[in-house]
């Protein structure tokens, strides 16, 4: 974690910029900064906060989360597979007549259909969320910064990746400085 991130004395050719990390003290400040970065047309950038700040999706210009669609598909799958399972096993493959009821009887199938709908929907919500977020991923340039440890505590950050088309060492820095961060850091990778 504690990689040397600011070895400015080394030759520039040996390092490669990865991202700018700007630090803020409050949710309001980071939100205004996010609006500025959004309006400057950046794509590969992010806001890092210790808790979800409401209104930040709008300030970043994010689209609505797609998790719900994954859950819908998984829920329908769960419901349909429960129905097919019970219809095939109790109704067709080995008909069981219990208490004089028909082998295939829908009312008695409802609890299990409901439970499997919920189960698969929950899998869809959790694993869909992790998949969309590309987690687990234990390695990310923001972790090179020692200051970033406060991100899960009480500090708010904006990171702009060098891979962004708009990224420019000077211009991006001045954009971020214009948003009054308490600290700006350039995270670099040592070229090998």
């Amino acid at each position, binding site marked *: 974690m504690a990689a040397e991130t600011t070895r400015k004395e080394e030759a520039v050719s040996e390092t490669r910029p990865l991202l700018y990390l700007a630090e803020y003290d*409050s949710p309001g400040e980071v939100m205004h900064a996010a609006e500025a970065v959004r309006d400057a047309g950046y794509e590969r950038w992010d806001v890092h906060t210790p808790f979800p700040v409401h209104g930040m999706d709008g300030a970043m210009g994010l689209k*609505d989360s797609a998790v719900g669609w994954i859950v819908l598909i998984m829920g329908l799958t769960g419901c349909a597979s429960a129905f097919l399972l019970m219809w095939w096993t109790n109704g067709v493959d080995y008909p069981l007549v219990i208490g004089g009821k028909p082998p295939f009887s829908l009312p008695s199938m409802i609890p299990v259909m409901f439970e499997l709908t*919920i189960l698969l929907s929950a899998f869809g919500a959790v694993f869909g969320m992790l998949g969309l*977020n590309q987690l687990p991923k234990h390695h990310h340039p923001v972790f090179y910064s020692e200051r970033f440890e406060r991100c899960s505590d009480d500090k708010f950050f904006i990171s702009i990746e060098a891979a962004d088309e708009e990224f420019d060492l000077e211009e991006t820095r001045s954009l971020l400085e214009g948003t009054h961060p308490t600290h700006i850091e350039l995270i670099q990778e040592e070229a090998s």
Partner: protein
Amino acid sequence: MGWNEPIEEIGEGRLVSKGTGFKQITDIVSGVTEKKAPRGWWILFGISATFTAILGATIGYLVWTGIGIWGNNSPVGWAWDITNFVWWIGIGHAGTLISAVLYLFRQYWRTAINRFSEAMTIFAVICALLFPTIHTGRPWFIYYPLPIPNQMNMWPNFKSPLLWDVFAVSTYFTVSLLFWYVGLIPDFATLRDRAKHKVRRWIYGFLAFGWRGSNRHWSNYERAYLILAALSTPLVLSVHSVVSFDFATSVEPGWHTTIFPPYFVAGAVFSGFAMVMTLLLIARTVYGLHDLVRIRHLELMNKIMLTTGSLVGYAYAMEFFIAWYSGNEYERFIFINRAFGDYWWAYWSMVSCNVISPQLFWFKKIRRSIPAMFVISIIINIGMWFERFVIIVTSLHHDFLPSAWGNFSPTLFDILTFMGSLGLFFTAFLLFLRWIPMIAIAEVKMVIPEADPHGAGGHALSEGGSHDDSHGSAEPALAEE
């Protein structure tokens, strides 16, 4: 959830003490897992671990000998084992109610207690699952209810409520575990970032999945959390309903009633809140969480106990009335036998613990008195255990033909297994308190007024009161006014 500005006009106080900011919340909650465990923790852990060992020994003996070591007999084929199962699974319900139902109703005070009660849910469901498993007598055949192709070419009977129960309880356990873990991811990241020791950092880092507080992640995360809450709400209502179907679909007098599903759910929430209260009061005192878990939280919980306790009391009365009104002589006999027969003491323990004791919460003084609520919460837990005992044993012991009547009395192993399950529960719970943040750090930060991005610089409280925070959690809000 969003920030919460107390409405002082109706007497609301802050959810977190004044002067407790983001940093203090992190320190208070993480500190518990970072400092050495207090002596009280070790004493309680020693006692619970001993009982867990007793549980292991009794289960070993049970598997070796058979369930004849219990007092179960014919006609009382279900006794303490199923009583314990229903009791434990009911206790679990408060966790889901707090984490899911109160979330959907935007009850911000839940953030102080949700992590805690979700953990309780998981451990309670583990204890619950233990009992039907060992009650089979041959737990190595427990896979029989699952639809696995086998050499007999037979399938499980999906028309049986016992099979619905298998699906309901295992779904409930899985979904509760997922819900709990999703909530824990950002807090594990906090512990990872604070860790001084390499191994500690490595373990919490592994558990945090590389969480970096990214808003692109929060956006999906909040949506997933909202959906999980929306899924868990009908789930929690279904689980105890399905448990009650085990009884209600039978033809036993005293069991065969339509009031069972709502009555069981109300009782489950009632007993669960009582258990949360018992545990919370201990942890709050031992770890000094007074700034995060305030009297206001406890008072609100007591109000829920008063409500659900009254519902349970209503169900008892209605059950009795319907037994008489139905004109069914077996039904009438069973209820009179419950109140005045061999197990009258169990029935009246149930009524006095569950119906009378929560009514004391009408008084504000009692609702806000910590010793009083501690005692009442324990009384309610005892009463709810008696409720399940009364339902199960009194219905079975004198059902139809007097020639088939019998009585039940517990053996030493009934008692030891039950005490052992309490030991298992408390052992797991104490380990949770020691190693996992017991209050949802990120969620508590979200409800303090400083979290309002529109407040002046996010520090002052000047502007926040004018905001309507009723919009959905993942909806893009207006960026600028």
